[in-house]
């Protein structure tokens, strides 16, 4: 190993990154974009469910009910409909997820008996969304009923809640919504690092093959290890910078509580960065084409990190076979560590097992990557 050659490789690679708009965009803009997209976009609570309304009666009472649906914030008005057929069509076309039909005798029945039926139909293609929307609808009706019962009771000289004793489900959903962000954002850091890290290094060796610079490079005394470390060094710096950006925005922008130690976070983030950079480099060495390497890098990093790491879908709810597979998904350990450090304030000792798993993966991948680069054309 020659420090001079190592430094020359790192310097050359840095210059190339600096002059390549595509690399710069992936390195600097992608984390920002993903942080906004995943931080705001991916949350397990659902707001603004599109709702269609078929108000047959058009009375003050029916209009008041519609208003309370829209004012709740859970629903947004998709369309006002004029017939029973239109309701079916709107649901079929996916114009709305829920449709409320208020019967023609709504206010009359309500005024005379104190109870009136309202029909709500939901598109349960996505059962999760439908279930949540039904919960919201019940909540809205409950609030409206309580309000109406109070007035109706007052008018008829009765004591207040005989009708509206339904529990306030919207509060339950709301709390969960708050929790899901704290739960998800630390994992987002892993997703972004996996995406950016492997993308960047997947191009680094294949680019030299494609542009024909590799042939001359391998005819010089430079060693395979110097090529690898020299190429990885600038990307490692970029990876840590991106990680710092994501972690800081998690704490200071998304207000995720941070209860652990920065040292633990730094160590594990370094290990994870090494793993994803190593994967990208390995693919780049083996595949020799920029497009092929970056596509497979996307597959090998994004997919397991989003689906099998427990970042969004809890691992303990997966089937046993899939759960076994996740033991080999390196991202799972980092996501576990991130959550524990952020939310539980776990120490290095508490996290020994996942840290060792991550370190072992990093060592294995770097070792394989170092061995797979040959100074040969074939």
């Amino acid at each position: 190993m020659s420090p001079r050659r190592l430094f020359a490789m790192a310097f050359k690679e840095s210059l190339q990154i600096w002059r390549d708009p595509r690399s710069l965009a992936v390195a600097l803009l992608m984390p920002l974009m993903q942080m906004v997209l995943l931080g705001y976009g991916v949350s397990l609570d659902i707001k603004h469910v599109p709702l269609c309304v078929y108000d047959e009666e058009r009375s003050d009472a029916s209009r008041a009910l519609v208003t309370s649906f829209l004012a709740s914030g859970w629903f947004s008005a998709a369309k006002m409909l004029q017939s029973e057929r239109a309701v079916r069509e709107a649901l079929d076309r996916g114009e709305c997820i829920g449709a409320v039909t208020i019967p023609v005798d709504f206010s009359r029945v309500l005024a005379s008996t104190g109870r009136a039926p309202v029909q709500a139909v939901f598109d349960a293609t996505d059962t999760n969304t439908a279930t949540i929307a039904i919960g919201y609808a019940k909540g809205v009706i409950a609030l409206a009923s309580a309000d109406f019962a109070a007035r109706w009771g007052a008018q008829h000289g009765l004591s207040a809640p005989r009708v509206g004793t339904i529990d306030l489900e919207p509060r339950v959903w709301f709390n969960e919504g708050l929790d899901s962000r704290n739960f998800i954002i630390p994992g987002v850091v892993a997703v972004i690092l996996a995406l950016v890290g492997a993308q960047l290094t997947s191009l680094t060796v294949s680019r030299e093959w494609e542009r024909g610079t590799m042939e001359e490079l391998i005819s010089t005394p430079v060693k395979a290890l110097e090529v690898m470390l020299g190429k990885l060094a600038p990307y490692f710096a970029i990876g840590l910078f991106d990680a710092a950006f994501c972690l800081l925005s998690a704490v200071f922008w998304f207000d995720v509580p941070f209860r652990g130690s920065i040292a633990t976070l730094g160590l594990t983030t370094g290990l994870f960065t090494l793993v994803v950079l190593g994967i990208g480099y390995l693919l780049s060495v083996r595949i020799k084409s920029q497009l092929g390497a970056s596509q497979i890098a996307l597959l090998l990093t994004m997919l397991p990190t989003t689906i099998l790491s427990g970042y969004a879908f809890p691992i303990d709810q997966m089937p046993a076979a899939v759960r076994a597979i996740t033991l080999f998904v390196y991202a799972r350990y980092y996501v576990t560590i991130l959550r524990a450090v952020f939310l539980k304030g776990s120490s290095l000792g508490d996290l020994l097992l996942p840290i060792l798993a991550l370190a072992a993966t990093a060592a294995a991948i770097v070792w394989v990557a170092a061995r797979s680069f040959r100074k040969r054309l074939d």
Partner: protein
Amino acid sequence: MNREMTGESGEFAVRAEGLCRRFGALQAVRDLSFAVARGEIFGFVGPDGAGKTTIMRMLAGVLLPDKGEIFLEGIDVVAEPERAKPILSYMPQRFGLYEDLTVAENIFFYGELFELPWRVRRARARQLLQAAGLLSFERRLAGQLSGGMKQKLGLVCALLHTPKVLLLDEPTTGVDPLSRRDFWAILYNLRESGVTILFSTAYMDEAERCSRLALMHEGEIRLCDSPARLKAAMPGALLEVVSADPRAAHKALTGAPGVLGLLLMGDRVHVRVDNALRRKGELEARLLGEGVGPAAIQPIEPGIEDVFVALLGQEGAA
């Protein structure tokens, strides 16, 4: 080129023995052996697909031969390519430097890879850039240089560490005549410092500049000698036919008695005959008889291309 190097005596800078390389069904190089003395300029000449690039790559230690051995200054390149790399320089056919780095940055990078002392690198770079006419382009991105300038920059980077063996794969393809002249001037200067140069080319006129050259065809060396001897050894004599319609002349002379081979060279036809004096008049008469019109016919010295065509033509006849 007055010194004839036969490569039979003294120490060899490069020696290859029984080289074979196959790519799938294609036998790119078959049973190739040659030796190059120190300080020689040795050329591989032949059409595309003759195996020139494959040889260069194997010599540079970036491609393994299937069989055979290569020694560069006594180092076994097949067994220990990394030991040979500090003493060789290889310029691939395709531009091998970084187009998104400037001239100076490329030079810095290659100087560092060979661990040159900074002072040596600066002095050497300055001298080479001057010889190449690139001194004022140091800050330009390599990708923004012309084809000729790129090749000269390639040579500058290849020569920074003063290699013992310089391997150039078609270095002047697509290079303007002026840059080509600079390029060769630098190469000739090198010979005095004992650098051995091996290069490949498809340009026959360039082959004349070598001390020795190997005529290659289908992965084999068909002839290997100095340009003068190769020409002298060409069977028959050469007549040049200058005519208003060289194509018609070529057609009319095909199959004429005593004609061993014909080569259309732009506006003239090279005719290889068994006896120049005897056939000159016969050919003039034949051209008139075939209605091609008057033509000037005179004996000329053969070029390498004539030798090459004679060599391959004989094979076609055999």
